[in-house]
């Protein structure tokens, strides 16, 4: 660690024009993140051409700002209108939206921002000081470890199952089955596509996400015919209260570590990190029965983990030249366009660039905090918008967000179908998040298991041949047992408090 150089890099980043592009990147990022259908990956990808021909520091600083902003931005729509702006914010819906419904949108937004900032900063700091160490661990991940990691991630399903484990499992299995639709990742054989070439690459993920969460909610919402008593939303803060911070600091610390680590593993990103962090927080909480009704730690858990991911994902990119998640895969392209090759060579020949990236990401997190605080009042206004305007506007955004990625109306039909499916599932007490988690982790589990078997020539013992994988699988089993035990406890407490225990 060369502190003189780091200091010098901060000097570079504090130049007015660099600060300006960081602020620009963060602002665009927050917007893109908040809009359903536009993910951090897509935002970065679409703005890469803008950076062509600009100096490296400016270009990279802007893209890093965008990355940061988008990771946070997803929480805004998740909290206010129950639509995760990015897949990484799907876990934020679980506690954020109930809080908003209780009139505490301001509190949730402030915590989301604060947790995003803490997570993002921790990720950036861990990246700055521990990159080489972490990247060696990341490289140990072979197909077997990825399979084990996916299984561990899936064990979170019990934690996000709501009141009925059977229904949660059904939702999860339904999601896993859905994830097998499309060309098989190993043999290429098209499964369950019913002659629809549009399904060849599986059910389109973003439209499915938008349908399940946004459209289903709109369908439920438009049915409210009586004059709703407007929930009074107080937005009087830019910063979480001391009590909230005290309640959430352990969660934030844990989420930062989980997020950075999962981010550093190539191929696993913010969506998985957020769910794992949420599941762990619920499992270790003293009052797990309150989860799902608007627990502030829940918001902190997912938001801090997904932002920590951005720093984590940069680790293997910078030190190995291997992107840690989808966004950094696009960033890799941006580096290359600048004539820079991330990896050990970058450390050798352009160590100044590496330190500039460290400094930019740290500064970008502060920029995100400031711009986010300035914006909170504005964002929260969304919830005050008349229902008759807000619902149609959400629908148009959902349709366009589903359509634009592939320019295909098929995706809009998929969105609508899952909107209806999600509506009915919700109505009958089936949780929706397990479907999402299954869609993310299902392909990872199946493809990597079968890839391992291709390598071993069909010998299943390969799964138990590697220590990290065995460790993760044991962890998955333990987490599963603990969650089931926890669930029993929750049911008992709920039965004590309000008799019936809900649906």
């Amino acid at each position, binding site marked *: 660690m060369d502190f003189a150089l780091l200091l010098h890099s901060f000097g570079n980043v504090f130049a007015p024009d660099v600060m300006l592009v960081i602020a620009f990147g963060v602002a665009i990022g927050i917007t893109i993140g908040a809009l359903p259908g536009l993910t951090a990956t897509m935002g970065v990808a679409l703005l890469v051409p803008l950076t062509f021909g600009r100096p490296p520091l400016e270009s990279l600083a802007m893209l890093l700002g965008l990355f940061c902003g988008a990771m946070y931005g997803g929480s805004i729509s998740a909290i206010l209108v129950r639509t995760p702006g990015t897949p990484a914010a799907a876990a934020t819906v679980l506690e954020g939206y109930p809080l908003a419904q209780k009139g505490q949108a301001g509190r949730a937004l402030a915590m989301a921002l604060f947790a995003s900032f803490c997570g993002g900063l921790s990720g950036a700091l861990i990246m700055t000081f521990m990159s080489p160490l972490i990247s060696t661990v990341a490289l140990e991940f072979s197909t077997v470890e990825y399979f084990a990691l996916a299984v561990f991630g899936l064990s979170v399903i019990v934690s996000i199952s709501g009141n009925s484990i059977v229904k949660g499992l059904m939702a999860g299995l339904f999601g896993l089955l859905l994830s097998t639709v499309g060309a098989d990742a190993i043999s290429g054989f098209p499964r369950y596509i019913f002659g629809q070439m549009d399904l060849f690459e599986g059910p389109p993920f973003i439209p499915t996400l938008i349908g399940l969460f946004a459209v289903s909610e709109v369908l439920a919402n438009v049915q409210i015919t009586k004059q709703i008593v407007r929930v009074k939303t107080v937005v009087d803060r830019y910063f979480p209260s001391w009590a909230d911070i005290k309640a959430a600091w352990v969660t934030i610390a844990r989420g930062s570590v989980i997020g950075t680590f999962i981010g550093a593993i190539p191929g696993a990103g913010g969506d998985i990190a957020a769910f794992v962090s949420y599941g762990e927080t619920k499992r270790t909480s003293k009052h797990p029965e309150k989860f799902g009704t608007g627990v502030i730690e829940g918001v902190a858990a997912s938001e801090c983990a997904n932002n920590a991911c951005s720093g984590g994902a940069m680790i293997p990119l910078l030190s190995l030249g291997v992107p840690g998640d989808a966004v950094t895969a696009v960033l890799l392209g941006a580096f290359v366009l600048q004539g820079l090759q991330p990896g050990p060579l970058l450390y050798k020949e352009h160590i100044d660039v590496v330190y500039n990236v460290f400094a930019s990401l740290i500064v970008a997190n502060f920029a995100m905090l400031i711009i986010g605080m300035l914006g909170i009042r504005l964002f929260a206004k969304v919830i005050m918008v008349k229902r008759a305007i807000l619902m149609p506007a959400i*629908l148009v955004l959902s349709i366009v967000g589903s359509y634009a990625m592939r320019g295909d*109306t098929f995706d809009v039909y998929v969105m609508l179908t899952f909107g209806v499916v999600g509506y009915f599932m919700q109505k009958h007490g089936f949780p929706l998040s397990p479907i999402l988690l299954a869609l993310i982790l299902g392909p990872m589990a199946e493809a990597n298991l079968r890839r391992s078997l291709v390598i071993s020539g069909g010998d299943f013992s390969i799964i138990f041949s590697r220590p990290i994988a065995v460790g993760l699988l044991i962890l998955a089993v333990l987490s599963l047992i603990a969650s089931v035990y926890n669930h029993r406890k929750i049911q008992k407490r709920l039965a004590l408090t309000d008799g019936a225990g809900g649906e």
Partner: protein
Amino acid sequence: MKRGDFVAGAIGVAISGGALVIASDFPADVVMKIGPAFFPEMLAYLLLLCSATLMVNAALAKPAVVAAEDPPPVRGLFLDNGIVRAMLTVAAVLAFTLLLRPVGFILTSVGFLIAMMAVLGMRRPLGMFGVALGVTAGIYLIFEKLLGLTLPAGVLDSILY
């Protein structure tokens, strides 16, 4: 007997059954032992198990305490009926999707927004038009101009540029 859960379980059974039938036609893989059918079949059996459990539980359960249903529609005006509103919403999204390509994004979106606002009970034509135009313009600018993602121009093709 909880009817909702029983039906949900039956749907689960149907889905897993269908998945199993289709998977039986997937090609086998001799080299790796598990081929394209392995995962779907395993998942379908598990879903079958869970669905059956849900159905049995539902059948054995005492008739659920009648949950606080949405109050029945009071007034006669059909738009005030929640279910009708939801169905109109689905129909409007369908119409949007069908018209998106031929008519173009801008006109479809403005029309859709006005129609939906009317369904949801807004009655000020000028305000509705203004809001619809504003929302559409905002979305158009972000997608087309900032991000360079093309939205169908439709009938406005020749004057938009």
